[in-house]
Every structure is written in structure tokens, then in C-alpha cells.
């Protein structure tokens, strides 16, 4: 359908997108790693429980860890090889995780699920769960939970905004796998029982917009280039005009389900090929990478190998980031392994990485001016630095924060606002838990 312009939302920032570094490089498949180290914590919620033992031969796509409870996802082997070890370790974010070590035996035996032809809604839902599909935008919410919403839904919104600077993996995927994404979206829509499919694409990707316009059942919405346009609440408001309530409300309570384009692609492959989710596209970019690329990477590949595949470092980086620069995780080194949710690896030069010392807050309110959630981050920072987390949450409305980072980006004093917000949220959760026990 002919593309239409999206609504305006208040706030947001315009960081330099730096997408030109990697947007022209087509998708490449990276060779399989020698050893795949697969974490059992691949989604929000509980980690999966390993179902293989040391010494067991596994094929590509074979189940190695079973989901524990509804908010959890199955984990599959990304290579064919032998399980060498299962041991506890520390994940990239510092939390304890369980890792399964698989040594590659060079075979290409696949253990896919049976392909489905003209599946019913329940079959698709079961397949999404069995293929271990999670939201590939970054949060990693199990898609199986999303396609069984608790409230009636009438619209599926595909997130093709990719508003994070540097990242171009969704852009390349939309460009090269348009048809698969559309088919995947139709499967998700069928599972939900809706016919209204909307895709939101930022205006800096006109080639993708043109490609999606040729499908009659897909409504294309052009989004103004602005961060955080791809935030769930912002995207739903801009594309449908509906507001999502504050937590614990979900998009489904407003009749909308939001899925990333990469998730739609994974659903298409899971349904048509029976392929479980064990690899994904990610962007390797930043000024300190010799050859920025968009590559298919198996889950459990060491970040160092990925960077070496992209020509290695051109200079020592100031910051190593897993994910996008606005919400991603800063790493100490490249010793970590990829997850299902790893959308990018950025090696940033000192010029790119803002690592200045904070100066005193001016009360200028520039953080509140750009907050897409209409919050008051300066109040949160002010009160939490004094240790009064309840006041911080009250006057800053901190619990509604989506942690997009727009406030801190815009702060002329370079205050660590997101850090204060996360601290306040954690402390408030403790206080709430304590309150319930009484």
C-alpha cells in the first residue's frame, strides 16, 4: 500500500546516525566458530534448563536447553559438534549465566522441525514456541507469549524503525529479505487472528519503504528520523495513534502487538523451513573497526572472532558496546559470546564515545524537553543522589521510564541520568517487595 506519514510524538533527539559506515554492505554469512559457547539465558525471564550432557553429539538446530516456564525460551545448538562442558559463568552484563560449550565437528547435519504448509493459528503459535523465537529488537521477550495476548488484538505493528545510530542489520534484512519478512508477518497475523498489518520504517531508509509499498496487505508508515522512534510506545502511537498505558499495561491492552522485522523473518523460516532460532544478523560497526559489516552470526560466537572477521581493530577502541549506542551494554573486552538478542557490536573511537566527566547540573531542563515519556529525569538524579529514592520516583515518575537514553544524550552537563534512573528503579523494586511482605 502507498506509504503514509506517521504522527508526531513529543520529545526525542537527533543523534548523528553514522549508518553510512555499514548500510551499503550486503549481508554475509560468517563461518561457523570452532567452539560455540551458548548461554541458557537467551530471553527475558527464567534461563532454560540444559537437556544435553557432556560428550553428547548434537546437530545444527538441535534442542540443548528446554524453556523453564512460560516466560523463557528453548535454546538450540548453532553448530554440529560435541558438547564439551556445561558450566556456570558470568554473562556480559555481570549476571551469573550457564554456558554450554560445543566443539565443532565440521559436519552440516541439521535437526530441523518439520516444515508446515498452510498452518493453522494454533500450529503457528506452537511452532513459534518450539523454535525458541524471541524478540530480536534487543529486549528478547519470548514471541510465543506475545502471540497469545491477554487482551483482544486487532493490529500487528512491525518495527522497522531501527532508530539506533550505527545499526544497519534490520535495514539490510528488510532490503534483501523483504518477501520473507512479509510472509513472516502474515504468519504472526494469522496466529493473532488479525488482518491489519502496519510496518513503520524511518524516512532514512527510502529503499526499504519502496519495497514494502508493493505489498497490498501491508500498510507502510514513514517515520520521521528521530530517536527513539522504534520504542514500542512511541512506534504504536506514531503508527496507530493509540497510547499504551503505563506498566503493567502491555501493547496488547491497546489492541496492538509489536514485532521486530528480524523476528518476522525468524518466524517465516521457522514455519516454512522448520528452522529454530540459532543465528541472527548483526552489525559490526564503529570508527575502530577496519571493515564495518552486516553478518549472519551463530549464537554463541565469540565477539573477538566476529571483529577479526571484519578486519579487526583499526585502532584501540575507547568503548566496546554490545547492541546500539543509545541502549547497548558497554563491555570490558571482546571475550563475551553472542546471544539471540545481540543486534550489534560497536568499537567506538575516543571521538565517538562520549566519556567526559560530568559537570554540575544546570537545571536547564533539556532532559525533560526531549523525554519521549514526558518525565523529569533531573528530579530523579537530584533525589537519588541524595539517597531519597521514593522522592526520586515520585517527582521524576521514574517507574514509567523506558531507558531510551535521550535525556542523557541531550544533557549539556553530561550527567549520568540513566545510571540514576536504573538505581532508582532497582531501589524502588526492593521497597515495593518489602512492602508486600509486610
Amino acid at each position, binding site marked *: 500500500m502507498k506509504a503514509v506519514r506517521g504522527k508526531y510524538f*513529543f520529545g526525542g*533527539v537527533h543523534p548523528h546516525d553514522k549508518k553510512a559506515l555499514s548500510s551499503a554492505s550486503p549481508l554475509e554469512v560468517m563461518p561457523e566458530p570452532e567452539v560455540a559457547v551458548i548461554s541458557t539465558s537467551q530471553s527475558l525471564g527464567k534461563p532454560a534448563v540444559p537437556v544435553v550432557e557432556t560428550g553428547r553429539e548434537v546437530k545444527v538446530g538441535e534442542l540443548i536447553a528446554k524453556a523453564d516456564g512460560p516466560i523463557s525460551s528453548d535454546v538450540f545448538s548453532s553448530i554440529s559438534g560435541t558438547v564439551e562442558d556445561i558450566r556456570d559463568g558470568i554473562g556480559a552484563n555481570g549476571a551469573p549465566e550457564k554456558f554450554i560449550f560445543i566443539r565443532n565437528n565440521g559436519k552440516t547435519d541439521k535437526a530441523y522441525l518439520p516444515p508446515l504448509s498452510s498452518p493453522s493459528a494454533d500450529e503457528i503459535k506452537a511452532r513459534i514456541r518450539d523454535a525458541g523465537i524471541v524478540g530480536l529488537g534487543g529486549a528478547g521477550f519470548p514471541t510465543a507469549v506475545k502471540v497469545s495476548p491477554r487482551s483482544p488484538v486487532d493490529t500487528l505493528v512491525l518495527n522497522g524503525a531501527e532508530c539506533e*545510530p550505527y545499526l544497519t542489520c534490520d535495514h539490510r534484512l528488510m532490503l534483501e529479505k523483504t518477501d520473507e519478512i512479509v510472509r513472516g508477518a502474515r504468519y504472526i497475523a494469522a496466529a493473532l487472528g488479525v488482518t491489519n498489518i502496519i510496518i513503520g520504517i524511518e524516512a532514512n531508509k527510502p529503499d526499504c519503504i519502496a519495497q514494502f509499498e508493493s505489498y497490498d496487505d501491508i500498510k507502510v508508515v514513514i517515520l520521521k528520523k528521530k530517536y527513539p522512534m522504534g520504542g514500542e*510506545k512511541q512506534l504504536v*502511537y506514531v503508527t496507530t495513534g493509540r*497510547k*499504551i*498505558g*503505563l506498566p503493567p499495561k502491555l501493547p496488547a491492552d491497546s489492541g496492538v502487538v509489536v514485532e521486530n522485522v528480524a523476528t518476522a523473518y525468524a518466524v517465516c523460516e521457522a514455519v516454512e523451513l522448520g528452522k529454530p532460532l540459532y543465528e541472527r544478523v548483526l552489525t559490526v560497526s564503529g570508527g575502530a573497526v577496519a571493515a564495518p559489516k552486516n553478518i549472519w552470526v551463530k549464537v554463541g560466537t565469540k565477539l573477538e572472532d566476529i571483529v577479526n572477521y571484519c578486519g579487526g*581493530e583499526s585502532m*584501540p577502541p*575507547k*568503548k*566496546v*558496546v554490545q547492541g546500539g*549506542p*543509545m*541502549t*547497548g*551494554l*558497554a*563491555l*570490558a*573486552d*571482546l571475550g563475551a559470546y553472542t546471544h539471540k538478542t545481540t543486534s550489534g557490536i*560497536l568499537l567506538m573511537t575516543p571521538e*565517538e*564515545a*562520549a*566519556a*567526559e566527566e560530568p*559537570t*554540575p*547540573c*544546570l*537545571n*536547564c*531542563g*533539556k532532559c525533560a524537553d526531549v523525554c*519521549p*515519556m514526558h518525565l*523529569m529525569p*533531573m*528530579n530523579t538524579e537530584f533525589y537519588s543522589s541524595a539517597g531519597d529514592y521514593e522522592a526520586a520516583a515520585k*517527582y521524576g*515518575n521514574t517507574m*514509567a521510564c523506558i531507558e531510551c*537514553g*535521550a535525556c*542523557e*544524550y*541531550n*544533557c*549539556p*552537563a*553530561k550527567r*549520568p541520568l*540513566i*545510571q540514576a534512573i*536504573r538505581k532508582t528503579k532497582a531501589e524502588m523494586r526492593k521497597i515495593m517487595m518489602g512492602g508486600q511482605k509486610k
Partner: protein
Amino acid sequence: MIDNTVVISTPPHVKSKRTTRGIMGDVCIALAPAAIAGIVFFGYMAFVIELVSVLGCVATEFVYYFIAKGGFAKKCKNAKLTCINWWKQFDLTSVVTGLILALILPVTVKWYEVLIGSIFAIAIVKMFFGGTGKNLVNPASAARVFMFISFSLTTYVAANFGPILEGETLTGATNLADYLLQNTHASALSSLDLFLGTGVNGSIGETCKLAILLGYIYLCARKVIKWWQPLLFLAVFGFTAVLLSGFYFESYRFDISLFLPHILSGGAMFAAVFMFTDYVTSPKGIYGQLVYYIGGALLLAVMRYFTKIEVVSFIILIMNILVPLIDKYCIRKPFGYVKEKKQKEGK
């Protein structure tokens, strides 16, 4: 490969190029036309006052940095290092304070009075409360009020709005009320004179409205201030003042032609662009800002109706003190907020 210089922090990992020093530099540039216009209109004394004020403010901050926190003797021992550290954290806010203070003073003020005022502004109003970003009230307007009550009162009354009249300048008779009754006044000024500042008595930087307008355009273009804030203030103030000044006439008359003289006279325009918009002492949310600007404008219009001296500095102080209260009660509702329905009791 990766050495220890890798930085770990919470996101975001990219930040805007804006810094506090850059913003204050922009304000200095915006103040330059008014400062130059003051020198053109009032001669070299205006320049001396500006210089004394800025140097006084910066020097006070520097001395305070030496004395406060961390031991005076220790800092004197490492004097060079202390100077470097001071320069690193120096963010031009004291330059802005000094410039604004000079521009809201009349040219007849003594240079040592300016020096005392600038020391008061930085040491007592700003640094005692915690330095940049922590002062409760605008240092420049507080210092002006301090000087107004401490030193030669006539000097400040003379820096009133209205035409320069021989022998009358020191009495305070040339106030707006007389000016507005143009029929009884021989040397009434046109709005153009008020706009350009020709033949108008007043403070150094407040007379030439053209220069202030240039500063306003620059600040808006650089997005240092929000364009609607001074406009809202001046519109509300002008309209209320027109309503009130109807009482000057024998029978009440609503005369919209008084709108321009009202907003162009005195320090209202300078204050609207440079002083009400001060980040530190203005509210942070949009609702708070609406309350702040409209409240300030109404207060100014009412106070001007009753008094014959320029009261903008007092109004700024009053509104500044109200800011914590405004901030507390004007909190925005988050995006997607739905008002909770009150549960009916008894059912």
C-alpha cells in the same frame, strides 16, 4: 589488543556536543550587542563598569575556589595545579553573571560599588549555595537589589524608564505614568526612540531594544532558550499593563497603542530575554514554565502600576524563590498516563 583504557558506563554511549561552557559562551555572544550598544550610548564609563563587573565576578569565583574545600595551604602549595583544575571546571557562568549585572546597572554607578556588587553576586548568592546550578536566585538581579538598597538610591531611580529631562533626572518624576499622558508632557518619546534607545535614560544594556532583539534571535537560533518564553512574558505583561494603565486617564480608557511603550520601556525586555530564562532559577517542566512566565508578567505589570521605580529585579527574585514550589506541584504526567478512577466506597 584492548588495553585498560576501555571505558565502561551505562548507556547512552554517544552524547551531544553541547556543553555547559558552550551554552554560556552562546549567552555571552548574545549579550555582546547590548554591551556594545551600552558603550555607544553611555560612553567609556559603560565599558569600565562592564569590565569591573566581569573581572570582579571571575576573580571572586577564582578566589573562592582557592579558599573553599580541600585546604587553603595545600592548594597554595600546588598553585599551578589548582589553577589548571580551576580552568578545567570554569564554565563561563561567572562571566555571564558579571555581564548581566553590568548591563542592568545605570552608568552613573561608581566602579567600587560595581565591584562590591559582583563579589556579593558570586560569593554570597552563588557560591555559598553550592556554586553553578545550585543558587536559589539569579545572582545578577540579587546583586542589583543589594546595590539598590545599599548605595545611592537616587542613582537607581534615575535609571528609570522615560525621557532624559534636564534637572529632572534625579527626582524620579520621569516615570512611565507621566510619559503615557503624552499630552501633558512636552518631550514625549516615540516608540521608535524607545526601541533604539536614543534619548532614553536607563541602565547600560536595557535601553537599546534592538541589541536585545539581536541577542534573542541568536539565543533562539542556537536553541539556548525556547523562543516562546520571552514572547509569552512580554505579551502577558504588555496586555496587563495596558489594561491597568487605563486607570491613568480621567475616565477608564483601553488604549492598545500603549502596548509597545510598555514592553519597550525599562528593563522588561532585557529581563524577559536574559534573566527570566536563566536555567538555574527557572522551572523545568513546561507547565511550571507557563506558571513562571505568566506569573512574573502579571506581577511586573501590577507592581509597575503602583511604583515609580524599575522593579524587574525584585520580580525576578520573587519568582525565583517560588520556583522550587512550582517545580514541586507542576509535574508532567507520563506519556500514556490514564487517570485512575476513584473506587466508589460503599458499593
